[in-house]
């Protein structure tokens, strides 16, 4: 696409700002929390076409699989307050096809006025070809996502039984169209979860990450794990830096997560390359339980 840009390697000397904001529950003034984080990261959205990308891989009413409705609603309000020209919501769920049903179950339609008007099912969107992709010839991605001025990945802080964790970067899998790659998007697993996440991070540089650790998921995530309260939001422009910080909060070594190791060639993952703003990692650190296969990921 003519208008498309990819991420260039970040100069080693510069540090990526990442904000950690305390939020004890979903009953907190989440718009205020997000505004604090946005200000700390100097987030600019005026005049931009913003795509909010929640995670709806599956949904269990009242469960902790998906992005919380209250947080998504607060993000809509944040970007409207910041003067965005358009705030859309898009998701291509990884397991079940009926995205609007999942949105209903997740209570997005109740929490967000005009949800249906804002929403695009990225699994069944128009597509554009990106070539090459992660060592393969090509991939097709949602045009809505590629055309956005800012893609905001809003993910719950979760462990993942294949990737170790699923945070803002892995959440980008939702821009890959299920209409071509299926439910689940097995193609991405064949190419390699780590390679795909790192490559999507390269392809979608105009992004912002919000990781919801108010209540996350530990153990056998991303679907069958247990709730784990951490009481914090992690926010920043650089998704690798956001995810690396979220990992450290979870007690996980980000440099042992394949997709972050791969992303480290373009973005900041090492602690020395991230400027922590707001709360410190230590003040909110909450070790998440890991399945036996991933005990080696534990931060020492």
């Amino acid at each position, binding site marked *: 696409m003519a208008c498309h840009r990819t991420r260039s390697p970040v100069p080693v000397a510069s540090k990526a700002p990442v904000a950690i904001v305390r939020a004890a529950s979903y009953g907190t003034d989440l718009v205020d929390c997000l505004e604090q984080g946005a200000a700390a990261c100097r987030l600019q959205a005026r005049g931009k076409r913003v795509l909010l990308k929640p995670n709806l891989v599956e949904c269990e009413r009242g469960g902790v699989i998906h992005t919380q409705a209250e947080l998504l609603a607060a993000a809509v309000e944040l970007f409207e307050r910041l003067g965005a020209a358009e705030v859309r919501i898009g998701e291509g769920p990884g397991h079940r*096809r009926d995205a609007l*049903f999942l949105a209903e179950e997740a209570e997005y339609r109740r929490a967000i006025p005009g949800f249906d008007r804002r929403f695009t099912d990225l699994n069944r969107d*128009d597509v554009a070809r990106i070539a090459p992709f992660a060592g393969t010839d090509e991939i097709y991605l949602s045009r809505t996502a590629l055309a956005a001025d800012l893609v905001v990945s809003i993910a719950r802080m979760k462990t993942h039984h294949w990737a170790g964790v699923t945070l803002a970067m892995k959440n980008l899998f939702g821009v890959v169209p299920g209409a071509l790659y299926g439910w689940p998007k097995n193609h991405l697993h064949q190419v390699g979860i780590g390679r795909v996440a790192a490559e999507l991070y390269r392809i979608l540089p105009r992004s912002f990450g919000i990781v919801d650790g108010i209540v996350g998921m530990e153990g056998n995530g991303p679907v069958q794990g247990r709730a784990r309260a951490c009481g914090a939001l992690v926010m920043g422009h650089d998704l690798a830096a956001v995810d690396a910080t979220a990992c450290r909060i979870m007690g996980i070594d980000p440099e042992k997560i394949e997709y972050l190791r791969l992303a480290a060639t373009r973005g900041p993952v090492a602690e020395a390359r991230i400027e922590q703003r707001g709360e410190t990692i230590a003040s909110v650190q909450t070790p998440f339980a890991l399945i036996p296969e991933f005990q080696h990921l534990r931060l020492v």
Partner: protein
Amino acid sequence: MRPRRRLKRNLRRTPGGLLKSSPDRFWRPHSLNWRSMANCVPSRLALIETAQNADGGWGYFPGKESWLEPTVYALLALAGEPWAHQAIERAGCLLRSWEVGSGGWRGCARVTEAHWATSLMVTLHSAMGIYDGATRRGVDWLLSTRGAETRAVARLAHWLSPRTVEFDAALSGWPWEAGTSSWVEPTAHALMALSRVARRGEHAGLEGRIAMGQAMLLERRCRDGGWNYGNRRVLGADLPSQPETTALALMALDRHAEIRWGEMLDRVERQWHQTSSPLARAWLGACLLQYRGERPESPCRDLGGDILVRAVEAIPWNRILTAA
């Protein structure tokens, strides 16, 4: 005549003759309303027709680019309507241009490879009485496509770590995309397509492949009796079934002896009433229509612009899948 008696008489007239031929009892009197959706179908068909794109195809939603899957469903829904012949002709021109030289059809104009919805095209051709070179090449493409789990490397990985995903690696269905593993939905569509072609008796190798695909579906059945999107047990944990994939698997297992049909169709009917997913309800209704000749009444509710759901709810699956 009382409505229930009339319905039983109509069921005996359904092409499959299920009420008479099955040893199991498909029909169970039900207190819920079983009137047909006849009042809703015309309005759905009209909405489908108005959503046709200039290129002759349909997108998943009005105004979106054309894709193979919604286009085929729209055609299956419109095929019996004389007033829709121009729309059908235009779509036919587009679909002919989407045939891939090596067999199969592309998923949309932007993608050049054959797409999993090739199975839907084979079903469409069968429904329209077409068995031409394109159909044969489509069938050949389906016969040459199988899940990657049967490859030596995948079988070795599964042998080394059988608990990761529990399945019989000797049984293969169909993948969403060539080179990936088998999943329930593409396998179900391929089985429905090949089963219809097999009745012609003109294509070699179909029966064995159909039996293998059905065996794969049966082996992937969840502990709760239905089907998830493809696996039943991952990392030692049982996966729950989903209504839409359960309906599709049952549609593909056409009267298979290992299914307790009466029990399963009662369950499908209960799920139809319980689910709030329009897509799940559309497939559950299609399953009931295929086996019981009627689907529960669905209010003419606002389905948004989802062409696929509208079309699946308007397709006469009992005629398409059970007719010889």
